[in-house]
């Protein structure tokens, strides 16, 4: 039943709406004002917009209601916030947009930016980024923590925003378009290794949920489900969503990176020291 009210937020969050409006408006304004030769192509624009709208959709439409009262829908919500949405956004390479705003706002040499930059560099250390990516999934799915997060409105928002922000950081680290040979961007080998390593614990967690005989997440039982679905089915579907799609996203990411590494490896005169790009420093 198509119903326009389904597009309205279940739990209206002005800050969230403001954040999404600013991002989309910032992207649009930069597109219109930047030099045509720097503009991203239509595929990249669509990928970026789609990624942003997907994340908005799971946070500020009726989808959010079902995420709060169905475990498997909640897993779908996190799949989009932590994987698919940021994956598309990072893949769309919004770097020219960043550069545009960096110049337009005169952000160079602003002292208050230094701690932000320091924090960013810290979070983008390969080991920290990988541990944070998997750690957040485990943390919010820890049964006691999950119970509280679904009961407390503040914790719930903190959970969803932390997943989205960490997803953006992680996939940006993976798909950073700058050449590892010429910049400090992470080498392709390390990126591929991280993608393979983070898939494993996610698969283990998903499989554990799928094969658990007991109800691991009884908060949905206690607070009522959105519709009368058998608890075992809900848990099974949720476990599968934690298990399969994230593993596939890792594989997809690895394929994209392999292709990129091979492109970068085709002979092109590089200044500086010669270096195997496929192994990109993962010695």
């Amino acid at each position, binding site marked *: 039943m198509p119903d326009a009210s389904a597009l309205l937020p279940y739990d209206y969050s002005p800050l969230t709406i403001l954040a999404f409006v600013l991002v989309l408006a910032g992207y649009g304004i930069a597109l219109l004002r930047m030099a045509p030769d720097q503009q991203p192509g239509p595929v990249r624009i669509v990928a970026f917009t789609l990624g942003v709208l997907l994340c908005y959709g799971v946070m500020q439409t009726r989808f959010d209601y079902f995420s709060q009262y169905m475990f498997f829908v909640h897993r779908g919500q996190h799949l989009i916030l932590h994987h698919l949405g940021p994956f598309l956004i990072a893949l769309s390479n919004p770097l020219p947009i960043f550069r545009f705003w960096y110049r337009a706002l005169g952000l160079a040499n602003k002292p208050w930016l230094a701690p932000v930059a320091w924090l960013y560099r810290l979070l983008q250390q390969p080991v920290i980024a990988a541990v944070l990516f998997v750690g957040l999934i485990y943390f919010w799915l820890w049964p006691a923590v999950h119970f*509280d997060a679904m*009961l407390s409105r503040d914790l719930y928002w903190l959970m969803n925003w932390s997943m989205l922000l960490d997803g953006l950081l992680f996939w940006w680290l993976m798909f950073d378009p700058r050449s590892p040979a010429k910049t400090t961007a992470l080498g392709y080998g390390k990126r591929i290794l991280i993608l393979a390593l983070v898939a494993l614990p996610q698969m283990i967690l998903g499989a554990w949920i799928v094969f658990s005989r007991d109800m691991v997440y009884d908060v949905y039982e206690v607070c*009522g489900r959105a519709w009368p679905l058998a608890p075992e089915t809900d848990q099974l579907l949720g476990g599968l969503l934690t298990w399969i799609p994230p593993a596939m996203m890792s594989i997809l990411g690895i394929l994209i990176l392999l292709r990129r590494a091979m492109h970068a490896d085709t002979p092109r005169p590089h200044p500086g020291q010669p270096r195997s790009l496929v192994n990109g420093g993962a010695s």
Partner: protein
Amino acid sequence: MKTGLAALLAALALLAGCGNNQPWHGKDISGLMPELAFELTGTNGQTVTASDSAGQLRLLYFGFTSCPDVCPDTLARLRVAINQLPEAKREQVEVLFVSVDPKRDTPERLASYVNFFGEHVTGLTGTEAQLRALSKRYRTTFGYDEPDENGNYNVSHSSAVYAFDHQGRARLLMRPDLSAQAISEDLARLSREHTGT
């Protein structure tokens, strides 16, 4: 120096032995949810708000009167739990039974239903919008099944009881598997906190 250390150890032992650290039987939800507030309709058709029962220890429970098992079972357990309290404390406890099925649960029907479960139960219901607002505030939901040929339908709702202390703060979430004895002990403890005895 030595006496200082002994005093510190004694203080630590006292803190640990105070019993405030031992877990509740119910799930502690302190700080997770907003304080009790609602505007609903009572069994006489009058408007009832949270301030009408201010200062009481309140147990909020969502259900409906055609509920086959879980609602009567829970209400009966609450009744036993309350009756186990000392008489003076019994008077401070109020069960707020909120029917999320206003179509069938008229105030009269609700009145005869809650009377069956003792004098400490207050029957409440409201418009669907009021009920949605309240259930959303406490992060729960309800839904209706398709009616059968006799017009009967099932209603999904929260199976837990929310306990609010004398100040109206959300304190405990009592799962349906909690025994009357356990509920009674938690209620007595909440009450002790208030009176300091």
